[in-house]
């Protein structure tokens, strides 16, 4: 059988329902559920006839419509024995339709804007090399400055190092300092990875201090630790309350 009919494609069950309601020219706040439910199901049958896969959302909506339809048929409870508000079984669906309709309409407006602004061209940034001065702009520097600079450091160092033997010197860092350092890392970014804390050549002492600082920060609830799966990288995040 040749297919001459073009089946309109709907974005979802709500889209289809809106279409049926508009076609039937009925009030969205007072949907004739029985009529609309029948048309809706008829449309799903049509989709099946054309071998179109009917997405599960459409089927769920069909069931919802049938449920509302049957609840509408139930006798209404007498006013005096229902202190609960007399709830329209359609209410929830109507709210969803209205909400969806707002965004659907806005999306057509977006589409119009897109049609204009996608016709606009931007230029690539100019190659910046031509604007960056070469290293000659650093010519204020002299060899003397270089040697003097190192000599000053070494002088300071020789005082500092007198007592220590030849080993790599590192300031003893306290847990409080480490806690502060970690908190500061989190002021410039929302999170970092656990292993960022342990760079290549960190001393055993600093590893222990860092770990204790982390535990302390968790205890006072200023950070938050996360790991998606075991053996994945551990995330350390700022805690936002």
């Amino acid at each position, binding site marked *: 059988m040749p297919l001459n009919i073009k089946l309109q494609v709907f974005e979802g*069950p709500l889209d289809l329902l809106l279409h049926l309601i508009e076609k039937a020219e009925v009030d969205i706040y007072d949907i004739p559920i029985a009529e609309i439910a029948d048309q809706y199901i008829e449309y799903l049958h049509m989709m099946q006839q054309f071998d179109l896969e009917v997405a599960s959302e459409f089927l769920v909506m069909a069931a919802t419509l049938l449920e509302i339809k049957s609840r509408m048929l139930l006798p209404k409870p007498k006013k005096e024995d229902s202190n609960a508000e007399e709830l329209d079984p359609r209410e929830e669906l109507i709210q969803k339709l209205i909400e969806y309709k707002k965004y659907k309409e*806005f999306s057509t407006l977006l589409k119009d804007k897109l049609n204009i602004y996608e016709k*606009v*061209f931007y230029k690539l940034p100019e190659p910046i090399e031509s604007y960056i001065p070469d290293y000659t702009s650093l010519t204020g520097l002299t060899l003397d400055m270089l040697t003097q600079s190192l000599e000053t450091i070494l002088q300071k160092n020789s005082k500092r190092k007198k007592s220590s033997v030849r080993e790599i010197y590192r300031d003893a860092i306290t847990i409080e300092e480490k806690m502060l350092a970690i908190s500061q890392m989190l002021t410039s970014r929302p999170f970092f990875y656990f292993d960022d804390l342990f760079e290549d050549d960190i001393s055993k002492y600093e590893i222990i201090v860092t770990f204790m600082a982390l535990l302390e920060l968790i205890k006072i609830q200023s950070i938050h630790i996360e790991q998606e799966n075991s053996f994945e990288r551990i995330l350390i995040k700022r805690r936002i309350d």
Partner: protein
Amino acid sequence: MDIKEIKSIIESLLYVAGDAVHIKELSGVLGIDEPTVKRIVNQMMDYYNDEGRGMQIIEVNNSYQFCTRPEHYEYIERLVKPQTRQGLSQASLETLSIVAYKQPITRVQIDSIRGVKSDSSISRLLEKELIFEAGRQDGPGRPMIYCTTDNFLKLFGLKSISELPPLKEFTEEQL
């Protein structure tokens, strides 16, 4: 520096940058306070529009950028190879509308409003850099939350999210 010279410098800065330049940068480079820079750029915008110049200045989140006019599209396309059109599907446009108004929003919330799964629209919008993953929401499952990008504003000619028109409230007569 007189105002003509300032305008001339701003023009050259925007030209060189190509990209959007934040008002803070302009203010810093020129050594002029931000409100004054803003006033001058606004004058320039009007001037470009009134004179029907080849470029216009657009404003996105307090940054300024040159771009061409939509009406010259046809000529520019003849000169440069046509840019790939954004070509957004109805589903993507709907999803984008929802993110624009309800951001930050999770996938489940989008699905719930549309009444249908939005995974593929979301990945398309991410890919086109119209929305971005803005982190995870606290709470069960810690779902990803989405927000719109500056690219979104640019592509739809909006200065900032606050410029989105209020959504129509529907009265019974309108429906």
